[in-house]
């Protein structure tokens, strides 16, 4: 069965392109467009990996990451944070919240894909 990836980002264009590419590579993709929905799907759908944006309406990415990583039920799900906030300080915050990877926008798809494979590769 193909691995399931949850993409949480309020930028529909980004979600759409990522989903398209990941589907081509044989992954199953589900999407959420704000923090609240993202958290809900993460819990309901039990994805194999989450690609998480930071700046989002309702609940920001850091918070979602922390909520999941501190919950024994979900802490095993790998989380890749994707954000335009590329300052060293922001990366540090991301790491402290327990994200497995931290990728800054704009990124090459291959870079993200390599990281995804690291966690849910065949």
């Amino acid at each position, binding site marked *: 069965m193909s691995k399931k990836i949850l993409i949480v980002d309020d930028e529909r264009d980004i979600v759409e392109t990522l989903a*398209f590419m990941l589907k081509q590579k044989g992954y199953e993709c589900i999407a959420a467009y704000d923090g609240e929905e993202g958290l809900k799907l993460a819990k309901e759908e039990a994805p194999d990996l989450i690609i998480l944006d930071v700046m989002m309406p309702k609940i920001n990415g850091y918070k979602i990451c922390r909520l999941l990583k501190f919950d024994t039920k979900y802490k095993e799900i790998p989380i890749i944070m994707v954000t335009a906030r590329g300052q060293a300080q922001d990366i540090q915050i991301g790491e402290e919240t327990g994200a497995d990877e931290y990728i800054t926008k704009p990124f090459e798809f291959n870079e993200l894909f390599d990281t995804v494979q690291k966690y849910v590769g065949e």
Partner: protein
Amino acid sequence: MAKIFVISKDEEFKSLASKFSSESRFIDYNNKDTFDFIEEIKNFRPDIIIVDSAYDSYENFIKLGKTASNDENIQMVLALHDEDKNIDCMSYVDGIIKFPIDEDILKTILNSHMKTKRSFDKLADNNKELSKSLYQINALYNTSSQFAGTLNKDDLCNIMLEGLNRILSFDIASVLILGQNKSAVLHINSLCEISKTLMHALKMRLTLKYNNSFEDEKIPFEVDFRKIKIVEKTKPSSNIYDLKILNYNTLFAPIKVGDNFFGVIEIIKKEPFSSEDVTCFQTIVHQVALPLRSATLYEEIKETNIKLEKLEKIKSEFVSVVSHELRTPLTPINNSLEIVLSGQAGEISDDTKNFINMAKRNVIRLSGIIEDLLDLSRVQTGKLEYKFKKMNIKPSIDLVCQTFKQSAQEKNINFEENIEDDLGEYYIDNRRIEQILSNIISNALKFTSEKGYIKVTTKKNARPDDRLVSPVKILDNNYLKISIEDSGVGIKEEDIPKIFDKFSQVESSLARNTGGIGLGLTITKQLLDTHFGLVSVESEKDKGSVFNIYIPNYSQEINFRMELNKTILKAPNLGLIYIRQEKDCNFIQKLEEKNIIKKTQNSMEITIPQGNYEHYFIYIPRLEDSALNFIQTNIEQEIKNLKTNSENCNILLETATKTDMKKLESIIGTLDELGDKNE
């Protein structure tokens, strides 16, 4: 024992008198006249003068005694022979002794006069001391009150030195005032010119003394000996001070407030310093320290301000350059996408088309953001050009609504228009008005989610909220109100005042809601300001927001104002009355005569623009109370006259300050009423 001067021919009396005096002089009738007497008294300076009434013209000596000696306290004693003698110079006499002279009585009398003399002398001395202290206190007071008048270090230093000179009359005073970056200014005030070696020595000495005043502690502000600038003030004289003067008496003190050092001062004087001198010196030096601190702070603030202004300018220019550079590569990107999309570069699948469209959409979005940045930097650097014209505003509103209606439908948002048909003409730059509306409506669209609504409503002849303060007093208070209401996320109450600030969205960092960098409203506000428009915001979190835009019904005066602003900026003291007809010049003249408007020394021309204007702009500068009466009787009448003479004229009244406007209003009644009455 007293010094006694005896004018008598009685040898027995003279020898008796000399017995009771420390020193005595006698005058001989034959070769002494009054002129010699004066000379002798001046040289001898007696305590008591005894005049024998048997002596010829003895009265002259009595009358002259006190003046000749230049000593008010000298005791004049008259030795009387004949009791019945009629004496007309009694008021000049301090005591009388009668012949025949008794030795004991003479002794007692001389003793008592001597005591009187000494007491008077002491009193005079005390008086002198007192008046000196009074003078010093006066000088002190004067000096300290002068300190308050300036924030310039050099001026403060000069005031201090002048004050010290008045009080202490020094020979040389040298002050070292610390500057920035180890620099310092050495002020030297001297009674005479000073030699080069002495100058060098003073510089060295003060720097050393400054360093030594910290003993073993660390010196807070180091002074570089080479960075000392000398300001010398000497009086031209034949005498030149050299190194010897350093052997005179000196007073030295640091100038400081708490631990803050501003400099050191030393004064050199030939005569010794009294304890009062030292107190005065310390007081003045202590008092100069506080204003010096303010002056130092003021200098720092001024410098920071200049730096900030430069920085702001660099930033604006940077933004402008970068934005231009960003725009350039966007063009070929857009073109390439266009080519692929058109199929000219080969057939494309639906998916490809979809993604290329997505790319195009984002290129357009990026261009928008860059445009915003460019606009902002143009607005801030004053490079944005406006094309004001009197025109119907409705097409602009319709155009913007049309544009957004479609996007609203796509987002499943109900877009409602409630725009009156005859909105009338306004003095506007239609492109900017469209920009203002687009910014606000696009925000509404951005922050409203599906199934919400956006409502655009207009209202003619609206009055803005009292809380909105227009920079211009618009008499009729008549605006076109355009309201944009949405059912979006709303704005927190505490955030409302901030939304017109630059990058306000960026600041609220993580709680990002939608795209954009938060420049739209900043630009909107600036554009609206140029139209003399106003904007108010009502909002409730999670319920929605209403943005009310007010555009003044007049607007031709914007033109006036721009002209006027240019002129007023050149001569801020000059008041202007903007007038239309030649006869109105009399009005200006009248105001000038009454000193309500003044021409400054840098005289300027009042240019009265040609043309048939419908508006009057009356600018009243500083209102003085004396002018208020005149205004009460005249301006009211004049405004009424103007109103009756020309139909539909608008009057714009502006004063330099808000208080002045209030005063004016209280006199004339509210100006709005005045306008209404005549319409």
